[in-house]
């Protein structure tokens, strides 16, 4: 093997290691029996997970997060599917332009979005809580859901749909019978992406929630201490997010 082949392999390998090592170490030290995350590891056990499951705050945060994540996933998938179907009926240029406009919120720092939502919700009397956070998360999940479903819709052959319409099917029946079965996996994938994004968010959640979610709970714990029980929660977040992302990449057939 020549140097020319070796350099790219060594470089990309090092980068992947850089990306994965912190996550792997976080997982490793969640199983430590010691009081902090440091070598040498005294032993492996589930003590920190037990400490976590005994913490009533943790259970409450999981319940709040589940409501927000599921609600936001469903809502943004419904709205995004509808928008993608609408965009697919427009000329390509117009659809691309509208999609770009919809993506504008992704161009702003979450801090600015979070604070503007906090101020606005305050002004219109929407109290911080699960509903406010769910709505706020639509802001950054909707562009992804719409773009992913729209990208799949424009690859469909319109002939089958026209045939169904010619045979007398209503637009709704034609959608249920022809379009939905083909784009079903993409819709599921898009919903999983929305849920992964919602789960991952801290900044916007912080300004719109009234009770702890997983991310604000981790934030509170991080501010006050460094304890392997944060590693245990972190491991949970990593495992769930990675699984959801892997499933989403698989379902939407994203290949780089």
């Amino acid at each position, binding site marked *: 093997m020549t140097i020319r082949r070796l350099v790219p392999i060594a470089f990309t390998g090092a980068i992947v290691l850089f990306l994965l090592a912190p996550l792997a170490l976080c997982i490793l030290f969640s199983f430590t029996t010691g009081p902090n995350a440091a070598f040498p590891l005294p032993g492996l056990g589930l003590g920190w997970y037990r400490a976590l499951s005994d913490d009533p705050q943790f259970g409450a945060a999981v319940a709040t997060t589940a409501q927000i994540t599921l609600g936001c996933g469903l809502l943004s998938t419904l709205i995004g599917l*509808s*928008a993608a179907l609408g965009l697919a009926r427009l000329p390509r240029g117009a659809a691309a332009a509208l999609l770009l406009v919809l993506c504008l919120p992704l161009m702003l720092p979450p801090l600015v979005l979070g604070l503007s939502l906090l101020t606005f919700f305050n002004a219109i009397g929407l109290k911080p809580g699960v509903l406010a956070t769910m709505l706020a998360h639509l802001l950054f999940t909707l562009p992804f859901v719409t773009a992913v479903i729209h990208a799949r819709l424009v690859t469909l052959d319109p002939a089958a749909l026209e045939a169904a319409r010619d045979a007398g099917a209503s637009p709704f029946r034609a959608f249920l019978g022809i379009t939905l079965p083909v784009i079903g996996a993409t819709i599921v994938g898009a919903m999983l992406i929305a849920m992964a994004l919602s789960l991952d968010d801290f900044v916007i959640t912080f300004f719109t929630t009234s009770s702890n979610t997983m991310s604000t709970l981790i934030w509170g714990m991080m501010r006050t201490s460094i304890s392997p029980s944060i590693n245990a929660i972190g491991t949970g977040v990593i495992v769930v997010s990675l699984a959801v992302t892997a499933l989403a990449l698989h379902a939407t057939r994203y290949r*780089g």
Partner: protein
Amino acid sequence: MTARRGTLATGLLLLPAALAFLGLFVAPLGYFFVQSFWKASSFRIVPDFQFDNYARVFTDYGGALGFTLGVAFMAATVATTIAFLFAYAVRFSLGRAGNVLLVIALITLFGGYLVKIYAWRTILGLDGILNSALLSTGLIAEPLPFLLFNTGAVIVTLTHYLLPLAMLPLFGALRDIDDSEIAAARDMGAGVTRVIIDVVLPQIRPALLAAFAMCFLLAAGDYVTPSLVGSPGGAMFGNFIQSQFGLRMNTPLGAAMAFSLIGASLLVLGATGLALRLGFRAR
């Protein structure tokens, strides 16, 4: 008749997304912008039209703004450069193994923003993973104190978070490059560096700017990373913005700070776009 019904249906399908966009983005941001001209006096916020808030941003927080733009520029440059080299290697020299590496890199995209910052804190801390590992192997006798709580740690942590994000547009753009063009340049004797500078980079300039802009804006607005791994004195602009919404509750000043940050960031990005245009011309 059918054409009009078709337009109506398209409009109805787009309506929910339009309402969400207006209600969650345009209206809140517009209201926030209007507030940046209001006045806060003795814990009450009074509608007004004056530029005092903006003037205060530059007199009181000008240094923090400049520092933040510098850190964001560093993090975005490092992340975009590494992401480009990674995507280039995956696209042109690794074959099937490259796709596996790319998928692994992208899977870390949503691996938990806070968890990543926390992981770096445990790695770089005084009695953290890196120091304890070096101590127990005998490579150092005393823990290294300079790893955490400084700007370097902020840039490493930000780069770790931004890298997979920057890879997305860059790999997408590299995929569309014609292999035969590269082969032709190579056949005429151009080295790898020449091919990258003269053939590849000019073609992917929009993606390069998109990746850089995304990294820059996220880094410039981040306040969590500096407050957890940065130096106590090295607060970034986001920390100051956020503190206007805590005890002080000076929403108008906070809003003016937020829009100053966006304005200054757009200037930096405009200059970067211009520099890329001048630097990487197709030959």
